[in-house]
């Protein structure tokens, strides 16, 4: 089983690699190049089912084409009446039994994989992250490590990481195609899944359950770093001093403006679990702003001046005083300097 599956898989991977090289599908986003345990499980079944079903399709097409060529009414056959056949027991049995066998071939590994991916018996021995889905951003709470962060989730490679997911509003769905299939984030119950990334990298995550106007912009990143780097990141995050004064004057003004303009009411800096808006402890290390904008100062100022234009329906718009260009600028300076760790998306090879 594993043997020929393996061969087909490498064949399939090669073809999909070719497709990707041809400019279709972006690495670390596409599910066609799995780089994690869940994605690989899914991929195995995708390949198996594609092979089985293509086999059926090919047979259908062959019979269909031959029938059309051979039995198309030709000139001079206008009055030809073919033999009226009622049926054929043997044939009908054949095309009932063969599909049953094919379905079984597919069903057995499906069930095995389903139970495998749902296994959370040893969850407590691994890293656990509590995830909250919000319109339209993600919050990550490393409860045991007492770290809070948002938008970028750091995990060590080669280890199972358990995600316990709950929504604060409507249903979302946590999907990192290259690492793992998706799981819904419901408001009524905690759903647990585990992910494991094989290689270092910054993987695109997407919300896959329709959740309102900015559903398509509710992106996040999974930053898989080596276990050592992960340890270092945890240490750095734990030793953050949220009160620390920035070095330069502009950023100091920014910090003051941040405190004056009720930003604190929603955004925590440090390990406070309050989370009406994203935790900004390591905002300067973020791979993106608001999940999808490049982390430049201009983009950040744009966001602070008018978030509605960037993410329609977001929950920040209108809930803080209007900022002057100058204030926005200094806040941006301050926030971008929040870089508590050496370990950043770059460490994962971004």
């Amino acid at each position, binding site marked *: 089983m594993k043997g020929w599956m393996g061969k087909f898989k490498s064949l399939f991977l090669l073809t999909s690699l070719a497709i990707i090289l041809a400019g279709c599908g972006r690495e670390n986003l596409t599910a066609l190049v799995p780089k994690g345990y869940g994605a690989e499980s899914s991929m195995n079944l995708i390949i198996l089912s594609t092979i089985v079903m*293509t086999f059926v399709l090919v047979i259908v097409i062959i019979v269909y084409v031959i029938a059309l060529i051979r039995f198309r009414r030709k000139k001079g056959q206008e009055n030809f009446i073919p033999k009226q056949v009622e049926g054929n027991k043997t044939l009908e049995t054949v095309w009932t039994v063969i599909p049953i066998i094919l379905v079984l071939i597919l069903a057995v590994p499906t069930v095995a994989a389903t139970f495998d991916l749902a296994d959370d018996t040893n969850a407590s021995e691994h890293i656990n992250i509590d995830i909250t889905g919000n319109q339209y951003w993600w919050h990550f709470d490393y409860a045991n490590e007492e770290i809070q962060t948002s938008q970028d989730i750091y995990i060590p490679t080669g280890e199972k990481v358990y995600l316990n997911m709950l929504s604060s509003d409507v249903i979302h769905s946590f999907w990192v195609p290259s690492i793992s299939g998706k799981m819904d984030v419901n408001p009524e119950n905690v759903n647990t899944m585990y992910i494991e990334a094989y290689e270092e990298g910054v993987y695109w995550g997407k919300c896959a359950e329709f959740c309102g106007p900015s559903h398509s912009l509710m992106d996040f990143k999974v930053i898989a770093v080596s276990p050592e780097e992960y340890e270092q990141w945890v240490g750095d995050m734990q030793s953050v001093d949220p009160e620390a004064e920035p070095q330069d004057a502009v950023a100091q003004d920014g910090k003051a403006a941040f405190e004056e303009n009720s930003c604190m009411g929603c955004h925590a800096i440090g390990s406070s679990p309050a989370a009406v808006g994203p935790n900004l402890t390591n905002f300067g290390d973020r791979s993106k702003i608001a999940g999808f904008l490049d982390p430049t100062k201009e983009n950040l100022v744009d966001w602070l001046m008018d978030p509605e234009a960037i993410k329609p329906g977001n929950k920040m718009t209108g809930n803080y005083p209007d900022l002057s260009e100058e204030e926005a600028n200094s806040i941006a300076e301050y926030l971008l300097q929040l870089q508590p760790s050496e370990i950043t998306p770059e460490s994962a090879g971004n």
Partner: protein
Amino acid sequence: MSIAATQKRGFGSFLWDYLTTVDHKKIAHLYLFGGGFFFLLGGLEAMFIRIQLIKPENDFLSAGLYNEMITMHGTTMIFLAAMPLLLGLMNAVMPLQIGARDVAFPFLNSLGFWLFMFGGILLNCSWFLGGAPDAGWTSYAPLSIQSPGHGVDFYVLGLQISGAGTLIGGINFLVTVVTMRAPGMTYMRMPLFTWATFITSVLILFAFPALTVGLFLLMFDRMFGSAFFDVALGGNSIIWQHLFWIFGHPEVYILILPAFGLFSDIFSTFSRKRLFGYTAMVFATMLIAFLGFMVWAHHMFTVGLGPVANSIFAIATMAIAVPTGIKIFNWLATMWGGSIEINSAMLWSLGFIPTFTIGGMTGVMLGSSVADYQYHDTYFVVAHFHYVIVGGTVFGILAGLHYWWPKMFGRILNEMMGKISFWIFFIGFHLTFFVQHFLGLMGMPRRYWVFLEDQGLDMGNLVSTIGAFFMAVGVIVFLINIIYTAVKGEKPGDDPWGGRTLEWATASPPVYYNFKQLPLVRGLDPLWIEKTEGKGKMTPAEPVGDIHMPNSSILPFMMGLGFFIAGIGFIFQVDHSAWLIAVYAGMATAIGSMLIRSLKDDHGYHIHKEELEREAD
């Protein structure tokens, strides 16, 4: 042509005729017209969606408007286009196929149509009254509860009213098939389209109540402060998903089985061969319908139901491939050894086989739960269900229209244009949807208002949009064909295709009482039997006698109108209690009409024997 004749009588009486008709053939025209109208509307919405997605981060539509578009596109196409068009074909053909003079409940038939029509109009009024629903055609709670404005209220009431119409239609067809078959028309002699109508009606009967319940709960949550789906108050939003899909999965079989039925008739007719494996085909249809109720949670693999539920539903889902496969192979075997004639009706049917097989193939792939963790809610799913719904249902409707047009309207659709529209639409369809399988796997979730630059999704989306334009052109050619045919189309006589089933034993279009004498059915494909072994036409099963006919009535229209007005009232009474007047007035109209119907005896009328004999000359 009847329309031309009636126009001489003036447009007013023509309109009145259709508003009050209880004749299944005219109700079929109404369904085709109504469904066709909504099909064009839904198609327009689809074009807006594809234009928005022609390039990354496009700003053709705003996020809010885009969400309204996708919601209305899905809702319109499923509830207001595909289903009514099928109901139209069923109405036009099924009574003829079983040798009946009308359906069992002509009055209910009309009521079913008007409820559908008013429900559809109500839903679309939302565009002008503050915004269309925007929570997706699935309207998942809590998003649908949270959705501001009245959009989702229109969804709830529009679907509730049109759903009632569908339910009534289903019950009517069920009783018709059970009680109205001509002498000798046993169940196992019924054409496959009639079988499909019958089984579809059973599905409607059992599936729609789940939707009705779900919509009522949603209505109460939104309008009257209940909390069935409100987690904060102890409700549970997953229940909506169960209710929706307990209805929703059978619904896809409600859409596909009638198409299966008519393809069976078409393949057999144009191969000049008896349907291969008739019995297996009938039982496969039943099995599909039965299994259709056992698989709803395959739409919920990622909800977190646990591995046991996911495994059971995965296996049940894959199992449906077996009866479906039986059908595909039986169609191929029907053509095998036949004398295949390829015309427009047959082209649509031939296009269906590879297209639907791909759709079925991806269906099995989706059924594999762990693989579905990747496919779910991505463009892969969008591709899959368009392959089955367009490749199955829409191709089916178009095949059926080309096949039965001469029967329904007495004129034959232009072959040339028929073929052109098929090829343009067919190519456009595969251009649009084939790449979407890959878009999904490359990381594009569905219902994305924009996709970002630099994610490798540009090319696929561009191709898809180009394909959509081809499809639009195909539809336009078909519309031109309809107009051309109405004006200049040939009149091919009663039986242009060498038909095998009873509808081809009537006039084209059939007289209003269908059969002067009910036919005697001697086997499967009764007309074919008479052509090859008998006198060439049906033997009557009864002497010429008086025919009992139902009276026309405006009451079904009034009931529909009443519910429409009450629906508007329900939606806006949340804002101001003065709108309760509309609720009362509407309900009074509807219930008043019901009272009139119940209390006033209406025995119909008789066409006398003498008249029938005179008409024959």
